[in-house]
Structures are given as C-alpha cells and as structure tokens.
C-alpha cells in the first residue's frame, strides 16, 4: 500500500468503469437510433428531387453560414399539407389503428385463456409449453405468413376442408381481404401476447386465490376480483407489445391483404420504394411516430417500473 502522503485530503476511490459501461451503448443508441429520427424529421421538411440523394435541400457545411441559411430557407411543411389534404393518407392511418385495435382485442381474447391455462399446469410441463409457444417465433416470420398464403389460397387446404365438410357451397375468397390480414396478425403476434401474460400469471401467488375462496368468493368472482386486476401489468405489456408494432405492420397486409386501402406501413413502403418520394414517406413516418408517442411512453414507463420493482 502507498505510504501516507502529507496532503490534507486524498480523493476517494471511484471506479471509472461505469462511465464506459454506460457510455458505449448510450453513444451507439444516440448515433443509430436518435439521430436517424432527427434526420427523418428534416427530410420530411424537404422536397423530392431527381438527384443523389433524392431530396433537397442538402446541408453542406462547406457552403458556410450562407449555405446554412439557404438550407433552412429550403425547408417547408408542404409534405404535411399534402398529407392533410389527401384523404388517402388519413384513411391509411385510420385503417391501421382500426386493424391494430381489433386484432389486439382478438389477441387478448385468445391469448389470455392460453396464458392462464399454461400458468395452471404443473411446473415441469410449463417449461415445455413455453418452449412450444416460443418455437414458432424462432422460425421465420416471413415463412409463417407464407404458410398462411398456402392455406388461404382459393384452392388451398382451408377451402378444401370447408368444402369437404359442406360448410360452404363454393370456396370463399380469403386472400387479399381484411380477414386474411387479421388471421395473419393474430397468428404472428400471439406469442407477444401470451408470453407477458404468462409471465405475470405465473407469478401469481396461489394462496391469494385460496384466501379469496376461504372468504366466500365463487371461482368466477375470484377471477374477476383477484386474478384479473393482479394480471393487469401483464395485460398492459402484452397489449402495448402488440398494438404499437401492428399499426406499422407491412409484411402481413402486403402478402395477405388486398391493394385497396393499404395500412400505413404499406403506404410508407410505396412512397419510398414505389414513388421514390423520400420526403413524403418521411412525413408519413413522422406523423406515425407522433401518433405512437403516447403508447410508447406508457410502455417504457411500465417496462422501467417492472425492471425497477425487482
């Protein structure tokens, strides 16, 4: 150990590691998550151009202060005015929210019994069940949607089954309908609803249910008064984990849905890749983010609270 030094006060030991441990991921996220958003905002205020990059104005610092002034002069909210005036976009937003809302409700209705059932099975089996629920998730998302394309074909197995059972007289059309979109969404997002619900229900203390029964509660009432409220955090997590990304879904409506009345994800894709109109696509994206800010903040708050609770 070092000998005593005559200085009146030595600085206490502080580990330097925290600065690095926090700093590196923080810097990465700012660079690759935050800054891109700002750029999207800027592009949304720009005009489309036949150039590389396909938008104007472009900020060139070489042009100096004059260049910066020109840059800001070139920004406008034209794209936003376009969005407000053309009903196509509004319909797209509405459709997205509508589909997201309904499919989330369906997911909750289907997912809750599954999660509840899983939480009630003996411990050993639960691990296997969780694995089974997660396994499809590990296989490609694209593949699973493609699987539904196979099934929902006009002469595909579903219609063959329905015809064979004489449930319908002629094969109904599934593909390119909203129904197909709902099926695809519910199918893909089910693990996202089941797992958070299961995680919360599994932690439920069975002695609470026994106490309720002991105090005279019939089973359905115990569920309503005890289980349901206590599973609220899981419900919230599942709902947000599904609702928010579903609004921006692209692959499912593109492969299973029709071309009339696209969802907002498809709209952005079309503007960007189809029309090569980056500024408009950015404007659509910015409005979408604004729509989603509230639910995302709720989700973050909930996630942070759950993490801090432990």
């Amino acid at each position, binding site marked *: *150990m*070092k*000998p*005593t030094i005559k200085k009146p006060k*030595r*600085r*206490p*030991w*502080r*580990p330097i590691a925290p600065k690095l441990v926090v700093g590196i991921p923080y810097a990465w996220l700012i660079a690759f998550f935050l800054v891109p958003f700002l750029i999207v905002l800027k592009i949304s205020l720009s005009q489309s151009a036949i150039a590389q990059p396909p938008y104007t104005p472009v900020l060139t610092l070489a042009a100096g202060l004059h260049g910066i002034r020109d840059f800001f002069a070139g920004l406008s909210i034209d794209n936003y005015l376009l969005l407000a005036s053309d009903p196509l976009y509004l319909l797209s937003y509405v459709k997205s929210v509508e589909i997201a809302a309904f499919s989330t409700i369906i997911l909750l209705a289907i997912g809750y019994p599954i999660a509840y059932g899983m939480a009630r099975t003996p411990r050993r089996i639960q691990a296997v069940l969780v694995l089974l629920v997660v396994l499809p998730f590990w296989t490609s998302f694209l593949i699973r949607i493609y699987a539904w394309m196979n099934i929902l074909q006009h002469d595909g197995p579903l219609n063959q089954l329905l015809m064979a059972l004489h449930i319908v007289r002629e094969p109904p059309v599934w593909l390119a309908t909203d129904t197909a979109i709902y099926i695809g969404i519910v199918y893909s997002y089910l693990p996202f609803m089941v797992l958070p619900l299961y995680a919360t229900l599994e932690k439920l203390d069975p002695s609470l249910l026994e106490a309720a029964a002991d105090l005279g509660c019939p089973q359905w009432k115990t569920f309503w008064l005890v289980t349901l409220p206590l599973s609220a955090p899981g419900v919230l997590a599942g709902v947000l984990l599904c609702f928010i990304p579903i609004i921006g879904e692209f692959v499912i409506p593109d492969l299973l849905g029709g071309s009339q009345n696209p969802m907002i994800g498809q709209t952005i894709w079309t503007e960007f890749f189809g029309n090569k109109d980056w500024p408009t696509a950015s404007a659509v994206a910015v409005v979408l983010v604004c729509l989603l800010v509230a639910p995302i903040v709720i989700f973050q708050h909930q996630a942070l609270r759950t993490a801090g609770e432990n």
Partner: protein
Amino acid sequence: MQSLEPGHGPATMTDWTPSDAKTRSLLRVERLSKRFNGTVAVEQLSLDIYQGEFFALLGPSGCGKTTLLRMIAGFEQPNAGRIVLDGIDLAPVPPHRRPVNMMFQNYALFPHLNVEANIAFGLKQEGLPRAEIAQRVADMLALLKLDNLGRRKPQELSGGQRQRVALARSLVKRPRVLLLDEPMAALDKKLRDETRFELMELQRRLGLTFIIVTHDQSEAMIVADRIGVMDRGRLIQVGPPPQIYERPNSRWIADFIGDVNLFEGFVGNDGASVEGTAAGRLRLSGKIDAKPGVLVWVAVRPERMLITRDRPPTEVENSVPGTVAEIGYLGDLSIYKLRIADGSIVKASIAHTGRLTEPRLSADERVWLSFLPEAAIVLTR
C-alpha cells in the same frame, strides 16, 4: 416509566482503553458520517479498534452498524470523516485492495465454484504460487473441519458447512481485520451456540482482529472483548461486556442490554440518595455524580430485586410494597411483574435455587420489593 431517548451528549470515544501497553489502535474511525438520500445512516462516529480484539457492533436494526462495516470494507464511501488502518487512510483504497476481509450475512459463496475454488479465490487474486495456495487451502479445510468437502459445490452443503466455507475463504487471506456481518443469523439455536465458541477460539488462536455486527445482545455479550452499542447512527457506549451491563452510561443502554427498572427522582441534599421516586427515598452506595436537585434515574436490574412477603428490616433501606401482576415461569427462573403504588410496573427475576415444593408467589399477592444500595446505579441521562 420514562421514555428512553439517548441524550444529546457527544458520541463517546472509547470509554475504556486496554491496560496492556503493547496493544495499539489498529483501526481508527474518525468522525465518520454517511447519508442515504437525506436519511442519516452514520453520524460523526469515532472509534478505535485494537489489535487482537474481538469487537462487537451491537444495535437495533437500522442503527447503521452494517453501514459502518461496509464503509470499513470499502463498499460505501463516507460523506465525511476517515478510516485509518495501520496509520494509512483508506479513502483512496478500493475495496479489492484493502487488507480487510468480510464475511457476508448470506455467505455469498460462488455457486459455480466448488469449496476449494471458493477458498482459493482470494489467494489466486494475490498471485501466489499454486503450491502455496493448495497448501493454505488444505490447512484451512482442516482448521474448519471441512476435510472431504473440498470438491463439493456450495449448493450441496448444509447451512453450517456453508458458513464455515465463508469463514475459511476470508480467513485464508490472513486479513488485518475480519469483518463479520451477522454471521450466525441464518443458523438454528443449537448450531449458533456451537459456532459462537468455535469462533471465539479461532480468533484467539490465530490472534486476529474481528469486528462482528449483530443485533443479538447475548451473542455480543458472549463473544466480544468489547462492545460498541449504536443507535441511529451514533455510538452510545463502548466497553467490555461487564462494563456495559453493570455501568450503562444512559437509560437507553440500560434498557437495551437486558432488562432494567428505572426510578426517576431528584438527587437528595446529602448527595448520596435520590428522592421523590415511585419507591420513595432511595439510598445509594457512594456519592452520586450530580448536584442535588438534578433529575436522575436509579437503575436496578431485575435479578438484583429482592421479593419478600414481610416488610424487610430497615438495614435494607430501599423497599416498596407491591402486588404481583404477572408471573412468567421459565424453568430456571421466574420473572415477576409487580405493580407498585403509583401504578407502574417493576420487574424482578428470581432464580429457582430452593426446593421444588417451596411455596411460590401467586398472582395478586401483596409483597415487598427491595434492593441493596450497591445493587443500583444512578443514570444522569
């Protein structure tokens, strides 16, 4: 009875210093303070720990004793004050370089390493040669009676065995000071008793300095050479167990360690008696260290109270009549609670030294309580 808030006196430095001239202060804590979010954990605490002693930090939960321990180990940084070990200020020394080792309350054994690897861990960090590490580990296993358990993982051991491994892991590094955080909290009573004596023997044999943190008074009284009693971040009294017990420096200490009866009154004009108490005028032995008229408390331990059916002779001056309110039979002794004239309760514990068929006291019986002047001490705060 009165409330037992500690007085606002200054925190006591050592009330007692060892008579052996060879012993010197090994660890010195100077006016240490620590706050957590505005709550005071340790306040202006000063303390000397001597080489080779078994020191106990005793206090109710939340008194700051564990915080003090962790500051010595280096896991918390004090807001003010300093800790000096062997003359060296520990503030700039990180916990992994302090010659101080800690035995954790939950043992903190590494679950992915076996017993030998756990014990060897600290030695590996020192960079010692493999042969020496193996030797020291083997010695430690033998010393703590853990032979044949070397290859097992912590999960496969019993509570008592795990505790020994934790102890071995710290001891093998031969620290200047060993800190023990409630080491026996997780053991059952019988194991606790056995372990206590083993711990004391070990400390004496190896000549090490131990600081133990505990909330269990009897444990502190048994193992410690000196006890430091803490409350709410302050050190209230420091001294060997007999001194703490027989000469508490305040009502709080008197009540915290064991049981005590307190009689509030004023110092009499003769300076050797206390007047106006619930038991009348009380005679004490020797001069009282306070001016006449000052508010004081006469403290008498329950085992020093005498109960008689008839009024005691006047040589035994301090006496008062009372009624038996409650009897607690504990086998080796009985604890009586008696109500005296002003309604307050006096406790007396009587050892059963007589024959089984001796007539015992019964509830509501009217008796006389008394105590000898030498059996009481006067507390000024």
